[in-house]
């Protein structure tokens, strides 16, 4: 690793932090940024409505990511979907069925549902069994969740979180029942496997915009602005490193 990398990274992170804070403070007022819509997320609410109407439930697969490792942020992003869906689903009386592939994600997903019930004044109706821990390995998780989709009263299959290509098993179960399938994945192998089977797919970075897409809250939208600014800076940096490399030759 080059000597300059670490301080450079440090600087980058620090400037990003400042940028984010400034944007958020500024973003409290002023025009709300308009964001490219992602149907993968926006349609989830509609599906929640269908689920309520048909007495079924939306299945949300949160994937194999745990909270303590590299996948934690991906899992948190997937959890935003549950978070922004929980209130409406609870008020419909049709809570989603959530499956997790890592036990650390279990209490967090349960909390999101539980709080939604508490907010709706129906704490006693909350059933922790709506969030299920399936299995701790990717293939077992995908197959177990697929079984739930195949046999349960599931009306739509939402796949969002950390997956590998084994997610194909889950998508196949949905396709077998001709369920509407909405997915968001960051891992290239998972995207490859989901691409042919899902109706709506959010790929890569888009997964992390779930909160912004589903809630339209400022705190999320402004962070997307920061993301875009940082993107431009980094592309310029990339160009710069090419120029330096070229000069150095």
């Amino acid at each position, binding site marked *: 690793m080059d000597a300059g990398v670490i301080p450079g990274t440090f600087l980058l992170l620090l400037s990003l932090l400042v940028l984010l804070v400034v944007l958020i403070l500024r973003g409290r007022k002023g025009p709300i*940024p308009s964001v490219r819509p992602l149907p993968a997320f926006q349609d989830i609410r509609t599906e929640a409505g269908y689920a309520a109407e048909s007495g079924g439930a939306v299945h949300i697969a949160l994937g194999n990511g745990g*909270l303590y490792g590299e*996948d*934690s942020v991906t899992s948190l992003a997937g959890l935003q979907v549950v978070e922004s869906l929980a209130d409406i689903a609870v008020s419909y009386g049709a809570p989603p069925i959530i499956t997790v592939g890592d036990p650390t994600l279990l209490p967090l997903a349960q909390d999101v549902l539980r709080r939604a019930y508490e907010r709706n004044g129906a704490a006693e109706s909350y059933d922790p069994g709506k969030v299920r821990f*399936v299995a701790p390995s990717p293939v077992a998780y995908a197959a177990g969740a697929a*079984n739930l989709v195949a046999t349960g009263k599931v009306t739509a299959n939402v796949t969002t979180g950390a997956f590998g290509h084994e997610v194909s098993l889950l998508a196949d179960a949905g396709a077998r029942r001709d369920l509407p399938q909405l997915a968001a994945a960051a891992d*290239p192998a998972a995207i490859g496997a989901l691409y042919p089977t899902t109706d709506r797919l959010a790929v890569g970075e888009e997964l992390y915009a779930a909160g*912004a897409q589903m809630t339209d809250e400022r705190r999320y939208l402004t962070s997307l602005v920061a993301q875009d600014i940082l993107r431009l800076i980094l592309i310029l940096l*990339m160009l710069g490193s090419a120029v330096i*490399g070229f000069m150095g030759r």
Partner: protein
Amino acid sequence: MPGIPNIEAVGIVIGAGLTLAIFSYILGDNPLYRAALHLFVGALVGYSFGILFRDVLVGMVWNQLQDNPITVVVPLVLGILLLFKGFPKQAYIGNFSVAFLIGVGTAVALGGALLGTLVPQIGATGRALGSISLDGLLIFVGTACTWMAFYFTARRGPGLAGVWGQLVRITGGIGRVFLVFAFGIAFAGALTASLSVFIGRIQYLIDAYWKVLAGG
């Protein structure tokens, strides 16, 4: 069955039977497959729990508690607090533990994304362009355009913002072509990998047949 201990022969037959049960899914979802699947999920959870219990809870926590209790008292307390998450009324007590997990996990992910992906990949892309070749240029343009394809906040409209929006759309459009390349490759890679596993399974079945049935 010369040379094969009995337990192995039985094990191979069981393994082959379970393999066939799982493969019956190809013909349609059926009770055999479901039973095998549930067996697998149950056994895996049980096994993982057993290993975790043996190697982490006893191996790390218990043994540390004997030798040097200070180092594990915090995680032990946090772990026990986490168990309150099992009871909806007291669940908030476990927030401390979840908060801790998120804090550490997020930091690990942040460090990995910065040092593992962002910095080296930007450097590598820069180097690719620096090497001055058509391919290098293509990689640079492709990477940049793909990245622009994710641009969230551009908007249509008149003036400078409109021109910028146009630019974002054009680069994003190019980027999506590269993305389809990436998806195609990822899909093909997944196919190759799972085909390899599939062939391995068929081989396993054939071996089992020779070893146990034909050989015995």
